[in-house]
């Protein structure tokens, strides 16, 4: 079994925005996608997923509408707004800087 890592503070938002940048998704699909893409290392608890979605919606970075899922059920789909896209770029950029800086320190000492 793969070892799982708890998500650091603030990265959840980034992962959700990145996942939604590929197209509208419902909550369950987002958590599945993150788990798959990270080869099961990252797993989003729904206890943190839904509050995060509501928070992002409040900030206007994503918007929600009801649609029909693959298995023909009513599901709430989230999609990236324009300001959400900008936010994603900004956060990606700062994430890269952060990880690069952390990596540099870890390697040089």
């Amino acid at each position: 079994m793969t070892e799982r890592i708890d998500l650091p503070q603030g990265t959840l938002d980034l992962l959700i925005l990145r996942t939604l940048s590929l197209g509208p998704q419902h909550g369950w699909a987002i958590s599945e996608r993150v788990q798959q893409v990270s080869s099961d290392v990252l797993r989003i608890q729904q206890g943190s997923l839904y509050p995060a979605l509501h928070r992002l919606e409040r900030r206007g970075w994503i918007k929600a509408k009801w649609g029909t899922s693959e298995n023909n059920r009513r599901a709430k789909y989230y999609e990236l707004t324009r300001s959400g896209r900008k936010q994603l770029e900004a956060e990606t950029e700062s994430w890269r800087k952060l990880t690069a800086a952390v990596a540099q320190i870890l390697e040089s000492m």
Partner: protein
Amino acid sequence: MLNDLLFRLRALFRRNAVETELGEELIFHFENEVEKYKRAGMSEDEARRRARMVFGGQEQVKEDCREARGTSFIEATLQDIRYAARQLAGHPTFAVVIILTLALSIGANSAIFSVIDSVLLKSLPYPQPERLVRIFLTNATYPKFALNPFDFRDYRARGKSFDGLAAITRDDLQLSGGSGAPLMLNGFRITSGYFRVLGLRPELGREFDEKAELAGNQQQVILSDRLWRAQFGAAKDIVGRKITLNDQPFTVVGVMPRGTEHPGNEYHSLVYGNDVDVWWPFTFEGNPAQRGSHYIEGFGRLKDGVTAEQAQSEMNAIMAQLGREYPNDAHWHVMVNPLYREVVGSSQRMLWVLLGAVGMVLLIACANAANLLLARASARQRELAVRLALGAQRSRLVRQLLTESLLIALVGGTLGLAMAVGGVKALVSFLPSDFPRAHEIHVSAPVFAFTFLISAATGILFGLIPAIQASRTDPRQGLHEGGRTATGSGRSSRLRNALVVSEVSLACVLLIGAGLMLRSLLNLLHLDPGFKQEHVLTASLSLPEAQYKTSVMTSQFFDELTTKLSSLPGVESAGAGTDLPWTGYDENTSLNVEGKQPAPHEEFHARYHSATPDYFRALGVPLLSGRFFTKADNKDAPTVLIINRVMAEKYWPHENAVGKRVTFEDKPTEKDWNTVVGVVGDVKDKPNSASAEPAFWWASLQVPYRNMSLAVRTASDQQLLVDAVRDEVKGLDPALAVANVQLMDEIVQGSVATPRFAFVLVGMFAGLAILLAAIGTYGVIAYSISQRTAEFGLRMAMGAQRSDVLRLVLMQAAKLVLTGTVLGIGLGLLLARVLKNLIYEVSPADPLTFSAVALMVIAIAVLACYVPARKAMQADPMVALRAE
């Protein structure tokens, strides 16, 4: 930002829809999860079980989502309020006691604050009132003295610190030919520019110009709005019309708008804000080199940026110049005081003391409320334990309990505000008549804000500690012991005891304050005023100059009138004098005493009056030596004086003053000398003045005045004589108004109105305080007894007597009450010093007051413990033990 707000609003107002959507969304997720496990080969049941495990607490997720939506705070608050209201409705006695005591204390605070706000905090109703000042002369003998008109004219010409200077002096006029009987009007003579200095403008017409200050130009008048409406039907064409004042034609030059406030004055005073009916020109007459008489009062508007101190030092430089030019002006200094301080100065300290006193009442009410909440929190321990066990956060519990106490405080505050509205009306009607700005007092917006603030602060103050205390409940213990507190009560009972101790000590402080004020009031009431106030009817008359041209006519009028009044049935004696005791009369002159020299840089001074022969008899002022005036002391006889004891002792110490002579001239001839024929007892300016001023009286047949006050001593009810006195005046001169008909008793009562007012209020607050403290003590003792029922039962089962139990309970109570009393006495000793200027002839550490208060507090507290203690004593051991 906007998006955020819209989102929150939608979440708040479409709460049900949002909740349904959330539920649906979570179920969808759950079903997908189940599907996933089924696809992995699990059975339906197993898949659901697994999904549920992964899923975690649905409600928790929902709660977190609500939090994320940003509406949880408002929602939770609404929920808390609903819950709190239910809680209070469920315990009506608790709710009523706590809300009523808070309402009373908050209401009292709001009422006193209304007075403070209107009197002290609101600025005076003039433009830029901070630039307005009063100008006085001062020296060692007369700390606050009126100005000399010619001095004033020089200040005005030479002073550079002011935008304007003006002076006024009280000079009432008698209106005839208006609608109805002759009427005495409150009048002031004013210099030109008086209203401009105050920043006021006439509604109609204009104010007096400089020409009006010239002798002979005084027959012009500015009317008050009230007089204009009442007597002249608000005629628009009033300006330019002639009206009859003092039997002479006066031209109306203006009408002042409604609400033109009188800025207050000292000399023949009308208090601040009182009604002035007419203003007429002050004319500068007489010899400008003679500067010994002082009777006008100065007002000034400081130039922007100039302080009262700077103006004062400039004025003193001018006064020093004048002192070199005119001998009368030497040895005087000028005092420039901000008008605000002059208006409110005397009442300021009393008002802050009253606010302090009600503040203490509120603190006691807080302690009381906290105590009741603490007692109830123990009863609610089980409920709180259940909520904690179900996962409620402690902070959430604190918040909910705080909401409850805030709700209580705000309900109490609202009720209190309603009480304050009624209370302020009662308070104003009860204020001493000379209280500044009394007519401006009402409950205004700042009072609402103040009430809201103190209510909220009160709610937090009395709610926070019990809330924190309650949230510390250990869920296991709370549940386990079925709501009975055995161990958890140690800390909370210490807290409760501390609260009772502080209640008792604060109540002590208030009682001490009230006690000191009561003693001071009694001292004032029992003070020998120097005259006998019972059965004396007084009134004032002002003879118009036009009709009573000569001094003979004037003196004859008062001679005839007093003779006629004396012969009325039931009248013992009747006299007339320039003034009555305690009415603020203050006219002084310098004089020379035969064979004496004043100390260098000093002058002999005395207050002058004039009186008819029976004036002293009518007032009951005792003759100490010599004789009273007689009808023989007339124009043809040598001028005589009656002096008071202070004057006799000041100028002729260890000598008999009778037969000694004084003069008011610098180079007297033989006829300028006045001989002292009698010495009378002292009448102080105010009942609590340290001593009387040196004073003398001329015989009114020799030195008559047109403005005189009547004093009529009767054998029986003086009220019956009012009409008889009016009739006699009418018989002599039908055009004469009889003003200020008053009983001397009323004047005396009026003079102690302020100390009485302060005492009654502080007394009421102290009463409320001790009642609250008694309720607090009762509550704590009753609660502790209910907690110890089993213990008492056990003790009695083991053979303790009922009296032992009683002693046990009383000991516990006594410990609290004694600690509180000792602390209260100590605090009282510290705080009573602020009363120093408010109390008369009582030491702030008065042993009688302190010991009486200590005994009273202990007695009341013991009484408050007696009821629950008796209950404990009568406990049946078996019942008590079964209560386990």
